[in-house]
Every structure is written in C-alpha cells, then in structure tokens.
C-alpha cells in the first residue's frame, strides 16, 4: 500500500538557522514526490517535486529536498529560515503505476525571531 509519514507534528527553529522537515514514504516502484505549503485557511501551494534525475531538488522560496531511495526519504530543507516560512508543510507521494496521490499528515513549521 502507498503511504507517507511525516514523523514530526511541529518543528521549531530560530530565524537564520537551517531547517529540516522530514518525510518518508512507501510505494511500489519509483515514486513521484512533492512538497506543498499551506497558509491558514488557504489551499496548498507547490514548493518542489522529484520526478527523476538529480536527487537534490531545488524549489520555491529557497527550499530544497533530497530524494534518498535507500532510506525512502524526501526531507525538505532550507539553509536559513525566515519567520515568513512559518506554515503547515505537506509531503505527498504517488507511485508511477497509480493515479492515487497520498499526502502526509503535515508538519507545522514555526520560525521564531
């Protein structure tokens, strides 16, 4: 079965420090992987995706993520956090033989001044 795990409900980081939001997945075959951000009472906004190729993917707002096939992970990272990065972050996965798109439970990122 296809699944996504975001093990941390909340991540707290000081402004200017690096941040990591964790995501692991389970899917048959090679995955399509995505990160989305959600601000209060809004729809989700796309940050980045891994389809194929380079394992390090760069996305919007200075975020990047690394696909690690052996660890089945796709952690979201940013070298220097901003207070405006505070939001709810979702990881999503789809197997290449299915149309089903599954999201994780979300991680709330709080960046303190």
């Amino acid at each position: 079965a296809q699944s996504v795990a975001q093990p941390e409900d909340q991540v707290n980081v000081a402004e200017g420090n690096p941040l990591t939001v964790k995501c692991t997945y389970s899917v048959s075959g090679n995955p399509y992987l995505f990160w989305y951000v959600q601000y209060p009472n809004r729809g989700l906004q796309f940050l980045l995706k891994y389809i194929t190729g380079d394992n390090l993917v760069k996305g919007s707002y200075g975020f990047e993520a690394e696909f690690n096939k052996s660890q089945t992970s796709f952690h979201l990272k940013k070298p220097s956090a901003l207070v405006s990065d505070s939001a709810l972050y979702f990881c999503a996965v789809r197997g290449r033989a299915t149309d089903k798109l599954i999201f994780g439970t979300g991680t709330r990122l709080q960046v303190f001044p």
Partner: protein
Amino acid sequence: SQTIHQWPATLVQPVGSPLSLECTVEGTSNPNLYWYRQAAGRGLQLLFYSVGIGQISSEVPQNLSASRPQDRQFILSSKKLLLSDSGFYLCASVRGGWDTIYFGEGSWLTVV
C-alpha cells in the same frame, strides 16, 4: 498554469441536509481530479479521484459521493449530511505525466 475554482467558499448546513460542492478547472484539459478533506488544519484525507468523465474512484467509505459530468468539472455531494462531514474540502487537479498539482482555495463546510 491551471486555475482551480471551488464554490461555495463557506457553507453552514444542518444535519440531514444535502450538499453540493463544485470544482472547475481552467487552463488544461483531461486532468486527473481529486477531492480531499482536511480536518482541524491537519492531514489531507483523499476522498475521491477521477481520471476522466464519469470515472470515479472512492477511497474511503463515507456519506459522500462524487461525480464528473464534464472534463473539467468535479462535484462532491451528499444526500444527508452528518456532523462528522464538517471540514475543509480541497479540490486538486493534475495533468497526466505528473505535472505540478494545483489546488483550489478550499470550501469550509460546517454541519450544525
């Protein structure tokens, strides 16, 4: 890029009343369409998805149904709402080949 329209944006309905949430897509054709429910600002639960007109896959047994009468229209319905149907409903669209997924702005449903 695609634009997803959802309406109504907010809805307060009594228990036992019917529901119709509509999603329409601009800027693409023959997309895969999805309905998700988000409770209490947390995880997204996949409810239904559709790969074409009249084709609906249901993920969770529930009080809801979905229909796709046109290529870029996806409707979420219920004949009789339950309190547990309250939540934030999101429609999503993606072209085949796994382009970026686009989301609507969501519909808040409160069942009272």
